[in-house]
C-alpha cells in the first residue's frame, strides 16, 4: 500500500495497519472457534434451528401485566385503610419466556432496578427494588408467570405513610434474568376505580375523656359523653362514634359493638366529642353500673386509648302506688257489726311498685314499708296522712299508730323473685271502731256525711327510707249507718209503791247508750204488768192483779208524775208520755253520735219513769212487765 506524502502531509504512518491487524485477529478467532467448536453447547438451539452460519443473541424480554394491578381491598378517600391494617396489591404478570416474576409497588414512577439471579437455576431469587427516591411499598414473592402475585404492606400512622395526603403507588412486574433482568417499562397504577392508586391511610380517632350525666332514674335517658375527635382531614371531617359497653372484655373491633354487654352508641353524626344516649330500663336497681367507652371513627377505626371507664349511677326513686291497684274491702261497702267496739275483718289490697325493682343488689327487699291511711273523704290525705297524730276513730285510721290502737295487719301475697319484678302485693285486714262516720245515703244521714265516702291512701317506702306520694283508691266505699242501742240497766226500778199511790216524780231511770255510728232517738212501748207476764202471755185484764201499761209515764226529764192523766192520755201534761202497748212513742232523747271509743265517753240519753199503782190492786208480790226500746236513727240535726 502506498500513498503520496505530499498530498497527505499529516498522514500517520500506522494508518490502515490497525484495520488489517484487527481483520486478521478476527479471522484467527473465527478459525480458532471453528476448529475447537467453542459454544457448541450454548448455541445448540440456534444451531439446531438454523443451519445458518450466522449467529444472533436473543435478549431477555421483561414480563408484562396480563392483569393490571389493583388494591385487594380498595383504599380510597371513602374507603381508607385504617392505620395498622395492610394494603395489598395483586396483579398477574406474564413472562414471555416463562420465567417467574415479581410484583413491585413503589411510591413514585422512578425506574426500578431489576436484579439478576445468580444463574438460570436460581430464577426468582433476586427481587427488584424501587428506583431512587421512591418508597418501596412492597415486592411480592417470586411468582410463576401467568399466576396472581400479591404484595402487601402494613400501614402505620406517620413514617413513610401519609395520613393527610393520598399515598401514590406504581406497580411493575420484573424478572431476575441472570443476564438481563428487566422490569416492564411502564408502571401501572391500576384501572379499577377505588382499587387503583393512590391508597389512603386512616388515622385513629383521639379519645381523651369519658363521662355521663348521671345519676338518672330508671326509665330516664342517660347520656354518655366523651372528649374525642378525629385528626383526619382527607375527605373532610369524619364522624366518630362512642360505643358504651358494660364490660371491657367483649368489644368486637370488627363489628364495633359488644356482643352481650352493649349499653349505647352514638346514633347521630358527630365529628367531635361523640356522645351516646341510653334509655335506662324501666325497672332498674339503684346502683352503680360499669360503663366502658370506645371511640371509633366512621371507618371502624378505634381510638388508641379505648376503652375508658366511667361508671354511671342509677338513682333511687320512691315506690309508687296506683289508685286502681288499691282495693278497699273487696269493693264492698264497709259495714260495722260490733256495738261499742271494733268490727274486724275489713280488707285492703294494694300493690306497691318500685322502679328500682323489689330486690336490691344485695338480694334484700327494696320495698320495706308502706304508709296507709283510711279516711273519710272530706279529710283527705293532707289531714289523714298516715301519722299517729292524725288518728281519729271517727274519720281517720293511719297505720302510724300503734297496733294496740289500730291493728292494721298486712302480709305480702307474692314474693320478690327477680330484679325485673317491681311490685309487692299486700293483703291486709283492719278493724273499724263503731264510731266511724257513716257516709251512706240513709234518710237521716247528715249531708256532710252523705257527700263523703271512705277512701284509702297508700304510699310505699323503700330501703333508703324514701317514701312516695300517697295515692288514693279509685274505688272508695261507703260506710253504712249502724243504729245501735244499749241499756245501762236491764230493768226499770220503781221501788215500793202502795196501791193508790204513784211515784212522786218520774225518778226511775233507764239510760240508753249510743253504741252505733248515728245519732239516736228512742221509741218506747210496753205491756201491762202482772205477776204472770211472759212473752206471749200478756197479763189478764184484772183490776186487782194487773197494772195497766198506761199507768207508766215517761219523759226526757224528771217531771212530777201526772196523776190526773187518764187512759189514752187525757189530761196528760204535754211533756210527759204515757206508755202504750200498741203505739210506739218516740222519746226525743236525741243522743248525739258517739265520737269516743272509751265507754266512759259514750253518748247516752236518760228516760225518766214513774208509775201509779191503782188502788184496786189487792194482789201483793212481784209484778213484771216488758218495755221495748227501739233504736231510731236521729234526725240529721241531732247527730
Amino acid at each position, binding site marked *: 500500500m502506498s500513498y503520496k506524502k505530499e498530498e497527505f502531509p499529516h498522514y500517520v504512518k500506522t494508518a490502515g495497519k490497525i484495520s488489517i491487524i484487527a481483520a486478521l485477529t478476527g479471522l484467527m478467532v473465527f478459525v480458532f472457534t471453528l476448529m475447537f467448536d467453542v459454544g457448541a453447547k450454548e448455541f445448540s438451539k440456534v444451531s439446531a434451528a438454523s443451519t445458518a452460519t450466522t449467529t444472533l443473541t436473543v435478549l431477555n424480554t421483561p414480563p408484562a401485566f396480563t392483569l393490571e394491578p389493583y388494591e385487594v381491598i380498595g383504599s380510597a378517600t371513602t374507603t381508607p385503610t385504617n392505620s395498622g391494617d395492610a394494603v395489598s396489591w395483586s396483579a398477574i404478570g406474564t413472562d414471555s419466556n416463562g420465567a417467574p416474576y415479581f410484583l413491585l409497588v413503589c411510591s413514585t414512577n422512578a425506574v426500578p432496578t431489576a436484579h439478576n439471579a445468580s444463574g438460570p437455576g436460581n430464577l426468582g431469587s433476586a427481587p427488584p427494588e424501587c428506583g431512587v427516591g421512591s418508597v418501596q411499598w412492597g415486592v411480592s414473592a417470586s411468582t410463576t408467570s401467568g399466576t396472581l402475585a400479591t404484595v402487601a404492606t402494613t400501614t402505620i400512622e406517620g413514617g413513610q405513610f401519609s395520613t393527610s395526603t393520598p399515598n401514590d403507588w406504581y406497580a411493575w412486574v420484573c424478572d431476575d434474568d441472570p443476564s438481563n433482568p428487566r422490569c416492564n417499562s411502564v408502571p401501572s397504577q391500576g384501572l379499577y376505580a377505588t382499587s387503583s392508586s393512590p391508597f389512603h391511610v386512616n388515622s385513629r380517632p383521639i379519645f381523651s375523656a369519658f363521662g355521663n350525666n348521671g345519676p338518672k332514674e330508671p*326509665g330516664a335517658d342517660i347520656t354518655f359523653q366523651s372528649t374525642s375527635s378525629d385528626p383526619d382531614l382527607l375527605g373532610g371531617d369524619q364522624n366518630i362514634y362512642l360505643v358504651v359497653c358494660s364490660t371491657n372484655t367483649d368489644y368486637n373491633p370488627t363489628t364495633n359493638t359488644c356482643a352481650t354487654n352493649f349499653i349505647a352508641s352514638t346514633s347521630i353524626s358527630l365529628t367531635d366529642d361523640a356522645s351516646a344516649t341510653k334509655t335506662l330500663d*324501666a*325497672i332498674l336497681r339503684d346502683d352503680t353500673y360499669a360503663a366502658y367507652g370506645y371511640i371509633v371513627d366512621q371507618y371502624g377505626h378505634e381510638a388508641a386509648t379505648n376503652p375508658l371507664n366511667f361508671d354511671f349511677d342509677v338513682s333511687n326513686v320512691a315506690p309508687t302506688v296506683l*289508685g*286502681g291497684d288499691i*282495693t278497699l274491702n273487696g269493693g264492698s261497702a264497709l*259495714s*260495722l*257489726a*260490733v*256495738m261499742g267496739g271494733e268490727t274486724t275483718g275489713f280488707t285492703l289490697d294494694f300493690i306497691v*311498685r318500685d*322502679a328500682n325493682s323489689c330486690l336490691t343488689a344485695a338480694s334484700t327487699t327494696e320495698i320495706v314499708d308502706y304508709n296507709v291511711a283510711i279516711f273519710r273523704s272530706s279529710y283527705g290525705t293532707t289531714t289523714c296522712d298516715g301519722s299517729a297524730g292524725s288518728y281519729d276513730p271517727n274519720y281517720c285510721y293511719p297505720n302510724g299508730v300503734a297496733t294496740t290502737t289500730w291493728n292494721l295487719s298486712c302480709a305480702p301475697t307474692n314474693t320478690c323473685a327477680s330484679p325485673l319484678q*317491681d311490685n309487692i302485693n299486700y293483703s291486709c285486714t283492719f278493724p273499724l271502731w263503731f264510731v266511724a262516720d257513716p257516709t251512706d245515703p*240513709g*234518710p*237521716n244521714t247528715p249531708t256532710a256525711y252523705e257527700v263523703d265516702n271512705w277512701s284509702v291512701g297508700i304510699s310505699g317506702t323503700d330501703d333508703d327510707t324514701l317514701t312516695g306520694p300517697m295515692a288514693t283508691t*279509685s*274505688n272508695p*266505699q261507703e260506710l*253504712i*249507718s*249502724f*243504729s*245501735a*242501742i*244499749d*241499756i*245501762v240497766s*236491764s*230493768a*226499770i*226500778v*220503781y221501788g*215500793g*209503791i*202502795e*196501791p193508790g199511790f204513784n211515784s212522786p216524780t218520774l225518778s226511775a231511770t*233507764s239510760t240508753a247508750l249510743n*253504741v*252505733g255510728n248515728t245519732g239516736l232517738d228512742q221509741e218506747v212501748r*210496753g205491756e201491762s*204488768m202482772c205477776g204472770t207476764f*211472759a*212473752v206471749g202471755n200478756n197479763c189478764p185484764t184484772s183490776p186487782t192483779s194487773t197494772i195497766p201499761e198506761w199507768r207508766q209515764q215517761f219523759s226526757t226529764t224528771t217531771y212530777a208524775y201526772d196523776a190526773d192523766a187518764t187512759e189514752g192520755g187525757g189530761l196528760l201534761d204535754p211533756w210527759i208520755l204515757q206508755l202504750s202497748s200498741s203505739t*210506739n212513742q218516740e222519746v226525743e232523747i236525741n243522743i248525739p253520735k258517739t265520737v269516743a271509743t272509751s265507754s266512759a265517753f259514750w253518748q247516752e240519753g236518760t228516760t225518766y219513769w214513774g208509775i201509779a199503782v191503782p188502788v184496786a*190492786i*189487792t194482789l*201483793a*208480790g*212481784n*209484778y*213484771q212487765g*216488758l*218495755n221495748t*226500746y*227501739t*233504736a*231510731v*236513727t236521729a234526725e240529721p240535726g241531732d247527730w
Partner: protein
Amino acid sequence: MNLVVRNFVVLAFLIPLLFLSSGISEVFAGFGITPPYVRNTSLTRNSTYEQQILLVRSDTDVAQKAEITIDAPLIQDWIQIVEGGEIRMPVGVQKVPMTVRVTVPKDAEFKDYKGAIRIRTLPDDGQISAGAVSISLGALVDINLSVIDRQIRDFRVRKISAADLNEGNKLFWLYFPGKINFDMLIENTGNVAIAPSEVVFRIFDRAGKVLLEETSNIGKIAKVPPYGTELVSAKIPTHLPANSYVARYTIYNGEDIKQEGDISLNILPYGSLETAGFGFIGLSLAHKVSILLPLFALMIAGLYWWKIRRESKRYRRQ
C-alpha cells in the same frame, strides 16, 4: 180483826215490796241494725228489689228471736221478710241477716212511699226476769221507696282489677293480640239491666309518661240486672310486648265517664300463663279478611260446581 182490816194490814206490809226487783243487772245486751233503712228511688212497676239488713247484738250467751213488724200502710203487701216474721238468733250468733224483699205491683202509683219495719228482740224461751220491768231492745228500719215511670241506666264501679296476661303471639301470618281481662264489680244503681258501654285503655310506659297504645274492649260486656251487683269482665286486646306498664282506664256509660284511673298492667312473655288468649275475634280486620276471603271463595266455587253439575244432570236427562 175483821177481814177488811186483816187485808189492809197484809197489803200495807207487802205492797212496798212490789217493785223491789232482784234481777237487775248493770250490763245489758245491746242491739243494732245496719243499715237502718230500706231505700230505693228507682223502682218500676213489676220490679223486685231485695235489701239485706244485718241484725246485730252484743250478748250471744242467750238465744233470742227478732220479732218483725211492718208498719207501712200503703205498701204493706209489697214488703216481705224473706226469713219470716221471726228470726232466730241462736246462742253464739252475733249477727243474722234479714232480707227485705220489695215487690212492686204492676198497678203501683208512681210516687214516693214511706213506712217502717220494727224489730224487737225477745228471749227465745219467752221468759223474762221475774219481778221486774224488763227492757227489750229493738230497732227501726225506715222505708223510703219511689216508684217511677222512667228507665234509669246507671251503675257504680265498686272494684276493678286487671290480671297479668300473656303477650300476643303470631301463628303463621296471623297475629293474636294479648288479652287483658279487665274485671269490674258493677253495682246497677238504675232499674234496667246495664253494662259499661265501653272500656278504653291508654297504656303508657312504666313511668306513665309515654303513651304506647290506645285500645278498647272487644265484644259485649255482660249486663248486671237491676239493683244487682256483679263482677263483669271486659276483654281488651293489646299488641304490646312483655313488660310492665301503667294503664289509664276509662269506663263509659254511653257518653258519661263512670270511672277513670290508673292501674298497673303486667304483660308476661307468651306462654307464661295458662290462660286463653284471643281467638279469631282478636285478629285485625286484614287478618280476618285473609281467613274469610279464601273460605268464601271456596264456598262460592263449591256452589258453582254444584250448580254446574246439577244443570249437567238435567241436560243429560233431557
